[in-house]
């Protein structure tokens, strides 16, 4: 089985470390970016299978990043999950309209978050996986 690659975009390095460890433990390869410009560059270079995107980023809003990614042929279909501190009441619909598949407010429930990642990657969510977590 090919290891799937996930790009995490967030300017908080501890969050990157924690989430990366979690995803790696779940069997994914992880790359990261800490600002809007790097996000697009890393995405183009690495062509990840999934992007976890923060909205409040240095050098540009996450929604702009989402727009730019949607304009790139390589990344047009790459699912994006937004993980933001922002209020879902004002931002969830905007994120979904801009092309994200899911919106999570920080901190997300660990299980729900992993389930959403698997679903977005088109993986069958096995019962055994649930039991393990």
């Amino acid at each position, binding site marked *: 089985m090919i290891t799937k690659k996930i790009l995490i975009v967030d300017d908080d390095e501890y969050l990157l470390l924690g989430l990366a460890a*979690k995803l790696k433990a779940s069997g994914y390869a992880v790359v990261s970016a800490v600002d809007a410009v790097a996000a697009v560059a890393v995405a183009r270079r690495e062509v990840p299978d999934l992007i976890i995107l923060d909205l409040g980023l240095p050098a540009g809003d996450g929604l702009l990043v989402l727009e730019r990614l949607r304009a790139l042929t390589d990344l047009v279909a790459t699912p994006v999950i937004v993980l933001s501190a922002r209020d879902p009441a004002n931002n969830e619909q905007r994120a979904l309209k801009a092309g994200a598949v899911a919106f999570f407010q920080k901190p997300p429930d660990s299980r729900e978050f992993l389930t959403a990642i698997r679903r977005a990657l088109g993986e069958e969510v096995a019962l055994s996986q649930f039991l393990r977590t």
Partner: protein
Amino acid sequence: MIPQEKRTLDGNRHDPRIEESYSDPAGGMNRIAKVDFSREERSELLNVKAWSPMLETYGLTMKVAVALTDVQGTLLGKVHCPQPIWTFVRSTLVGKETGCPFCLSPPSPCAAVMNALRTAMPAIARDRAGLAHVAIPLSLGKHRLGAIIAGQVFDQYPESLLLERAAKTFGVSAQLLWRLASKQRPISRSALQQAGDLLCALGQAFIRQRYGAILETQMARTNLRFRLLVEGVTDYALFTTDHLGRVTSWNVGAERMLGYPEADILGQHFSRMFTSEDIQNGAPEKQLGNASREGRTEDEGWRLRRNQTQFWANVIITPLAEEANSHRGFAVVMQNATDRREAAIELETVRQERMNLQEQFLSHVSHELRTPLTAIYFFITNLLEGVAGDLTSSQRENLEFSLENVKQLKDMVSDLLDVSRIETLKLTVEPQCMSVPSLIAEVLRTCLANARLKNISLVADTTEGLPSAWADRARMRQVLVNLIDNGIRFTPDNGTITVQGGVFAEDSGFLYLSVTDTGCGIRPEDHPMVFDRLAQVKTLTESSRKGLGLGLFISKELISQQGGRIWVESQVGRGSTFYFTVPIFSLAKVCGSIFTPANLAAGCVTLLSIDVPTIDSSIPAQDPTGIRKVLERCILHGQDLLLPPMTDADMIETFFIIACADRFGAEAITKRLRRDLDSPNLKAAIFITTLQLSVNDQPWEERIAEVTTQIDKLVQKHLVEREILK
């Protein structure tokens, strides 16, 4: 002793008609009877100086002596035009004057005066020298004020015998007396009577004039006092109007405030101080009407100065009552409240700004807290998930405690933001049709993990077949989770928390939900405080004091915004029960707006059920809000109605439209729906049911209720069928 002759002028003193005419000569003076004159007023009425010219003139004209007396017959002032014979006789009486200046001997008081006052008619008496005098009563209504005596004249040729006796009595020369008397021409009795009548008329007229003068002085004084008062007030406009609203008086304050000098505004209608908008709305007339009806009316609004600039005025209008049912005008008190209003607006603006700043700050803080919190959360869950290797049971326990605290922090961050939203009025609820038992079940699943830590059992107890609630599901969930978490926090290990739901007994338009714990309870005096902001009852043990104490405050706001209420019943040591109510969803209430006789003239209603295939959240265009918007576009507002979501949040694929239309109208709606809704990957199934309203002879309400019940049944049936299909 010379016998005194006492006679009335006409000898018919018992004629009540005459008495009446004297006691109330002007007619209408009777009212004075009600007035009690003060000593000052009495002496003013009989002011000697005022009477003198009149008496002097009368005496000279009629060639009689005349004088004013009080009610005792005592002389006031002097005797005008005294007769020589009387002066001569009188001169012997130095030191032994009688009360009556005309009676040359006692008894006192003078019989003529007494008679006149008693009968209210002129009375004649003759003294020992044979000189006659007539007394005229001075009265106002029933008040006897004094008398006028005129005379010192012979009413027949002087009798020599009488004169001789008098000369002896008074010790004067009989020859001299006779000589004086023979020079004085006698006046006939009838002439004396006429003179008395004339004097009586003059006296009454004069005393009424005096009375009028006194009244006028008093009124003038009052007027002056009132004017001084009104003029002294410069911060208020004080003016009066007639019954139609035309200005009848105008003070300096009014001139300053409104810019019109008195001369320019008198007689003008007070509506010229109103804005044209207010005049169009009939505000001036309405305010006068209100004042008449209520006895007073108060208003705040814009008023116009003469130069057409506006100011914010506080206005009080009172009717000036004259009789019970009519009034002669209005008194208007107006205050310029522009500064006060601006200050209030400014204060509110500042408050809002401060609140907005606070919300921005809290929003920022909560945003900034969330990211590091997420990092901590990820690390802890990583460890618990075994990412860094297996854990000993004590390590696991420590980590679980940490996780618990992280979750609490997360809730606090959310609470902070909610509180600032409540204060900036930005917290909103969006009611929908929702099932209470399914909410309770879902919330209990969420809270189970927390309860297990303290081995607390969670019990749900809801009535079968509960009607749907009309509430914001997410907010209801928030309230319920908060109440259950509170219960868990304050309940010792191995306790029980019971969640109940049912129709509220006190108001069948509401459902109630309750959360009962077996915790420490709340003292009765603390009950009202628990829903206050930052309230945390002091008796709680340190270990259970967690959180910011904002949860119940937020819950109360959320529940009241949905039209319900929240309260607590508790016994110390036995536990507490928190109750809250939410409105029951009523199709009738929702349909009320479109079920009008005009809309239902055709006699039928159509229900459209739209089943949209299971929505894939990865295709954002198909989110339920998007579909709702499309549906809203396809209906005729005011005539058709898109029902709120009738199922729970995760089952959103059925929509209902109630249309006041027949089958053809429904077909038209369907055509529009298909055009806008159907796309290659979305094919909606639309069902149409047309219902006929019952026959005309039934009351309208019953016909509406009947068709509403039918629709309700159809909706429920459709939902059940969808559920089975799944």
